């Protein structure tokens, strides 16, 4: 009896072992089968047949095909292209002819979701004018920090997940030093992407977004210079002008300096006007939030006051001097006239408020102007643009107003050192950023903005951009580009900026006083510098400082910083 039981025990135990393991294996097989079934080829095929009437776009194996739903109001590029585009096209054809690039090759680009429309436009034109045999595959991520993380991790794993990545110029230092970015001076001299003359990106922006430690590592893809946006109707209102004149003894106009702006902000805030949206109108809204943007406002005033971030001899942080304190002084004096959201809410709230007409003076990226001009915007006919106010500085015995515009972030395209065909990848971006094609790419979406001088001045291009941006903005923007200065394009750039942001926000929220904030930030910055090596950081800083705009360098020289 017992041995029978033991035998049946053994058998059933074995049965259970077999069944549980096979259940597990079966589960994995089913999972894999399900994944295979849900594979993108099927999706892509289906959507391709749907899109028959629309212009063809990406034929990626991983993303669904997409087209702009609004028939693009594009002028088709003249068949005779500008030389930059032509060289790119010829270059690709030469590569194919010589066998260095084969039909069926793919270029994989890592990018952020916001630039998807733009890249797909570039791909559409690539397929139309260059070749259909080389495919472009887009790896899209939702948020910018994710692109940074993925790029840095690719630098570690070297897996060859992508051939190129569009990054913020701020990250250039990290991306280069981690070994991910391929220097492209050789391609620059071979193919000339148009960085000189009238078609060049407006200097100094064209240089400082693409050069690190004296070498070229990126092609500029975008510009992100801040301009002052304001409610024209309120500034130009005669009754308000009279009121302001009698109260403050000065004219109500677009302010030339921050000192002029503060009383205007006070004036409007105290009026307690009602905005088109129904909310109240605030005099000013400048970034002071802790997640990312607080450093921009402070940096703007600091640089205009003639401050220099690091000593050019030994890389000591020089932010805790009088320029730094002045920047805080201005911001704190503005604080009562800004909504509390400026200090607590995410950066997009600034856009929301201005577009609803609830702010009189504000500053942000070019996209703010575009949003303000949308048909659904409450300020679409009354949004004005100007160069940011400056700071009065004494230079060689005279008082001059130094104006400078920050250029935070700014997308640039970097070729990976682990790309399968770097030359081909580079040529795609030369094509996508050229005067003719770049214009189409930029006008398609919202997050990329113009940067070549010819786009502003050459009548052949200007009309298309005026339609998208408005003439007043274009003029103000062109000036601002020439006055713009780089973001912290050093190794550890995001960390320098983040530590500054957190302290600026603390001061604005009232949890720290300016002196402590500045010395804390300086101490933090110092440890970042030491972490990477003073010599290496100094080399990068010296190279970067040379690329600052002339008026800032003049102020530095006058103060003995340079």
């Amino acid at each position: 009896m017992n041995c029978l039981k033991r035998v049946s025990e053994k058998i059933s135990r074995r049965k259970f072992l077999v069944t549980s393991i096979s259940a597990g294996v079966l589960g994995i097989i089913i999972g894999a089968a399900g994944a295979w079934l849900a594979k993108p080829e099927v999706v892509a095929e289906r959507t391709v047949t749907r899109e028959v009437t629309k212009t063809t776009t990406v034929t990626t194996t991983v993303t669904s095909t997409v087209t702009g739903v609004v028939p693009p109001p594009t002028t088709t590029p003249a068949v005779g292209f500008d030389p930059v585009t032509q060289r790119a096209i010829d270059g690709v054809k030469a590569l194919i002819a010589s066998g260095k690039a084969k039909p069926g090759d793919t270029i994989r680009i890592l990018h952020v979701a916001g630039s998807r429309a733009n890249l797909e436009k570039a791909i559409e034109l690539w397929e139309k004018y260059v070749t259909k045999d080389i495919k472009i595959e887009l790896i899209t991520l939702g948020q910018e920090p994710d692109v940074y993380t993925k790029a840095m991790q690719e630098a570690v794993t070297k897996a060859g997940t992508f051939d190129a990545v569009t990054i913020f110029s701020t990250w250039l230092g990290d991306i280069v030093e981690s070994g991910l970015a391929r220097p492209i001076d050789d391609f620059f001299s071979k193919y000339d992407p148009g960085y000189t003359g009238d078609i060049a990106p407006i200097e100094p922006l064209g240089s400082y977004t693409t050069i690190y430690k004296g070498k070229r590592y990126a092609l500029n893809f975008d510009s992100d210079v801040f301009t002052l946006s304001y409610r024209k109707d309120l500034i130009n209102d005669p009754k308000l002008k009279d009121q302001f004149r009698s109260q403050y003894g000065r004219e109500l106009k677009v302010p030339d300096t921050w000192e002029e702006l503060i009383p205007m902000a006070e004036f409007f805030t105290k009026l307690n006007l009602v905005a088109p949206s129904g909310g109240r109108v605030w005099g000013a809204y400048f970034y002071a939030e802790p997640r990312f943007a607080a450093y921009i406002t402070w940096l703007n005033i600091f640089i205009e006051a003639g401050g220099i971030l690091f000593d050019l001899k030994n890389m000591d942080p020089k932010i805790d001097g009088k320029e730094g304190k002045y920047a805080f002084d201005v911001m704190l004096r503005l604080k009562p006239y800004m909504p509390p959201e400026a200090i607590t809410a995410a950066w997009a709230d600034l856009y929301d408020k201005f577009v609803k007409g609830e702010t009189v003076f504000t500053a942000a990226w070019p996209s703010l102007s575009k949003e303000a001009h949308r048909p659904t915007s409450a300020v679409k006919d009354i949004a004005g643009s100007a160069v940011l106010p400056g700071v009065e500085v004494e230079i060689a015995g005279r008082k001059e107003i130094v104006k400078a515009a920050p250029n935070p972030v700014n997308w640039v395209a970097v070729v990976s050192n682990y790309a399968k065909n770097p030359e081909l990848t580079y040529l795609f971006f030369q094509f996508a950023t050229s005067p003719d094609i770049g214009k189409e790419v930029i006008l398609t979406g919202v997050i990329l903005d113009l940067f070549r001088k010819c786009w502003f001045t050459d009548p052949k291009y200007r009309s298309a951009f005026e339609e998208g941006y408005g003439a007043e903005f274009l003029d103000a923007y062109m000036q601002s580009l020439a006055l713009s200065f780089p973001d912290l394009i050093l190794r550890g750039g995001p960390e320098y900026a983040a530590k500054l942001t957190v302290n600026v926000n603390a001061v604005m929220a009232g949890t720290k006083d300016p002196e402590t904030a500045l010395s804390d930030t300086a101490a933090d910055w110092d440890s970042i510098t030491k972490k990477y090596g003073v010599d290496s950081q100094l080399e990068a800083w010296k190279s970067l400082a040379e690329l600052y705009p002339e008026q800032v360098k003049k102020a530095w020289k006058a103060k003995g910083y340079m």
Partner: protein
Amino acid sequence: MGGNRLSTKPPKLVSLLANLPVNILLYVTLIVPFILMIYLAFLAWNPAAGYEWWQAPLAGLSNFARAFSDARFITALGRTVLFTLVVVMIEFSLGLVLAYLLLEEFKGKRAVLSIIIYPLMLPWVVVALIFYLLFQDYGPVNNLFLKALIGDAATQMHWFLSPTTAFVTLLIADIWQWTPFMFLILYSGLSAVSKRLIEAAQVLGASSRTIFWRIQLPLIRPLIIIALVLRALEAFKVFDIAYVMTGGGPGTSTETLSLYIYRVAIEYHDISYAAALSLIILVILVIVIRVFIWYSFERR
């Protein structure tokens, strides 16, 4: 009490089933990265250093020493401990009360139950953005609810501008989201208590309150301990709401430990330092939990 243990050796089947799946999961998937992380903590390396991590020189204990003089880390630690204690205690009491009240059948109980556990089902980022919008100066908490209670003074309330009130919003968001967790565990544990025991007690004349406090609760004591430990561990890692709602602000006054470590690891790319910080946290938690478990289970 921790199980009715047998001192005999387990039969082969049991030891196979009990060991194999979990070991595959843990050791194949986790142990290598975990050891890698420990190794990273003893280096002074980050991806932008210019050389690979296996070429990086050992930095000994310098990362750990740095952590102890890092004021931002220490304050984040204290803040997170406070957050965890407050939140777990409140969630436990609320969950217990609710579980007690819902033990009996009534009409629509299933619907009520579904509603009560709904907060757990929303993606965390979405929960965070709900409360972000609710507590903004232009949001309904100030302009609808508080206004109804205290009139126009409500518009002077800036939730995210002051460290204390910002912290309170985080507490509220977490309690909203996670009380259902405690409730569910307590509820299922309580309803699993054998009906026979309860009937026997009722026959003996015990009131339902006595039954609850003297019979049901003590019986699910191990489950309560587990629930508290698990919830505390999760609360300690609070990230999404801090990131979305306050961004750690104002300044760094609502920066939780996870948020700080995230910034160090991902924004500053200081991977070695982040690994060291994580290990310090790990050691602290291990000690605390060991003490807690000893206290609850083993002193008899």
